């Protein structure tokens, strides 16, 4: 998924990206007028990808029949390739864990006591029945690497100036779940504020709305993500970040199968 979903705060690039981000932050306002679509993506990547992150968030799934489910999880991420997520509430879901290493994903449920690797079209199923898919959690979050961009316009969205960028998957990335994305990028904070994700056929798959953008250090980070799976019409899912720590030290054993199956 992109770095905001399910707390997978991806972090591409490491120190280089950080330096780049600083550079962009300093020069952003003055350079805006001449920005190419690629530069816009680079700035988004620079702002949104971190070396490491730890997120505590509440996932709220609202059903058409009025039912509401609240889940709390803790997530750790390192680079773009590694993330770990554990549900802590409610009690019946506590201890359900998910590990992503590159494009592979494992699920561990306490009652099963053994991890299961999921693959193929299963990655497109909803994470814990939400509008976020497992695949959303194992996608490489770098927009520049995966997509070719076209600037289609500038709009004001919720009072913020945005660039509207159309992304087409690069020919070598035919494997991506979303072959086309239309992204509304905050023109000053380099945070996507809205996204429409499409299949190769052109069918709309998901709509994401990002908000509650807060400053963390020299970055801007969306604390709220609303996701609507256009094919799963029964539900709508909102992630509200409760705490976000960026570029912190994360124990490396977190991203291993023994940790997934063994716990603390």
């Amino acid at each position: 998924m992109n770095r905001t979903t399910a707390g997978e705060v991806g972090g591409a690039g490491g120190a280089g990206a950080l330096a780049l981000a600083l550079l962009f932050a300093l020069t952003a306002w003055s350079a805006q007028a001449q920005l190419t679509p690629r530069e816009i993506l680079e700035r988004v990547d620079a702002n949104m990808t971190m070396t490491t992150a730890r997120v505590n968030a509440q996932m709220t799934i609202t059903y058409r029949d009025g039912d509401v489910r609240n889940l709390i999880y803790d997530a750790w991420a390192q680079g773009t390739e590694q993330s770990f997520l554990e549900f802590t509430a409610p009690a019946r879901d506590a201890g359900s864990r998910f590990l992503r290493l590159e494009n592979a994903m494992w699920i561990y449920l306490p009652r099963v006591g053994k991890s299961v690797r999921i693959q193929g079209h299963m990655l497109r199923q909803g994470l814990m029945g939400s509008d976020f898919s497992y695949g959303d959690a194992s996608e490489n979050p770098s927009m520049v690497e995966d997509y070719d961009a076209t600037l289609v316009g500038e709009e004001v969205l919720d009072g913020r100036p945005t660039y509207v960028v159309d992304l087409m998957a690069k020919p070598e990335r035919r494997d991506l779940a979303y072959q086309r994305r239309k992204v509304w990028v905050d023109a000053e904070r380099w945070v996507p504020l809205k996204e429409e994700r499409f299949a190769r056929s052109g069918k709309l798959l998901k709509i994401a709305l990002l908000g509650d953008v807060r400053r963390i250090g020299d970055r801007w980070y969306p604390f709220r993500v609303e996701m609507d799976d256009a094919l799963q019409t029964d539900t709508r899912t909102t992630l509200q970040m409760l705490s976000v720590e960026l570029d912190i030290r994360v124990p490396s054993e977190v991203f291993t199968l023994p940790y997934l199956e063994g716990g603390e």
Partner: protein
Amino acid sequence: MSDLPKKRRRLPVLRLAWRNTRRNTRRTVLTVVAVTVAVTAITFMFAYITGILGNLVDSYARSESGHVRIRKDGYTERERLMPVYLKVDGVSELLAVVREHPDVEEAVPRIRSSVLVDGAGSNRPGLLLGLDMDREAAYLNPQDMAVNGRPPRAGFAEVMIGTEFAEKLAIHVGDTITVLGQTAYRSLGGLRLVVTDLASSGMSFLDNSMLVVPIDQAQLLADMPDAATEILVFAHDPELAEPLAAQLKDSLEPHVSGDIEVLSWLDQGPLMRTMQMMRPMLAVVMGLMLLMAGMVIINTMLMTVMERTQELGMQAALGMRRSDIVFLIVTEGLVIGLIGGVVGAILGSGVGIWLEHTGIDFTAAARTIDLPFQGMAYPDWRVSFPLIGMACGICAAGVAALYPALRAIKMAPAEALRQ
């Protein structure tokens, strides 16, 4: 017909007719064989068509619809997603109420759940069926599906897997598999299950994706004790399904929270509707078969009687009354029809009843279609089929004899003799 006498002649017609049939053995045998073949075909094909339709309807009832099906309101609409959260609660109480109804033969709870099955490192989506292993014996019959006769036991973490599904997952009897599926709280649940046997239902769509577990294991996986996604009710008399559904809905009303859907098998889906629509179509097919059989008989009769125009002319020239000639020929036709009809009815019934017991094996063909059709077809012989066949044979033979006889007697005897 105007020249037919009104008064009956006292001619030993039957004796004459019988003697005539023996005069030209080739001619008689040819006609009798034609009638026999036609009546055999009718008797058998009627049994066969009725049997195939009955088999489809019966398979569908046992695997999908029951005679009455009870579900949570809204489940059917989302059936494709197998939403276990749309469940029928308090199943044991509801089953007790349903089983009290005098028209109910049995009621069984089932859970259908869409799951991910993890075998030897690879995983695939599958259809998990939670069954009451004992009570299903006469319906979905898991015991019969078990290839080695070891279905999972109630109360144990055991599973039986469709043969082709197991093959794709490289799973063998004795292996332990992990199953992940949705819970009634719409989150993710999982189970570890020991494979006790492979399952072969003969229905391709099941053997490709099916897992059969005791219903208690399905309830554990979906976190829904004493609940099921549906209750199937089987009536003593399937014809009573519609009124039974209405009565059950009323008697269950005080016992359920929220709305439930109680539908007879005729109101559930397009398949049974199609079946209902097929009945008149099959009647047309059967009618056409009768017509064809009749045509075969008529054709042969025409040929053999036309051949005798000269003979009939001679009889007329010798002074035999025309009406007697017609009567005699028609009686000959009826005698031949009767002989062929009886032989045909016996042959057709014999084959039909024999295959009704042994069955016709379509297993290979059934694997390629996605219908609840269990591979074996059993004709359904009924006493009316040979009777219909015989009636067709006798009438067709009689009618067929009438025309050439009438034609011959209308000619001047000299003209008939010349032919």
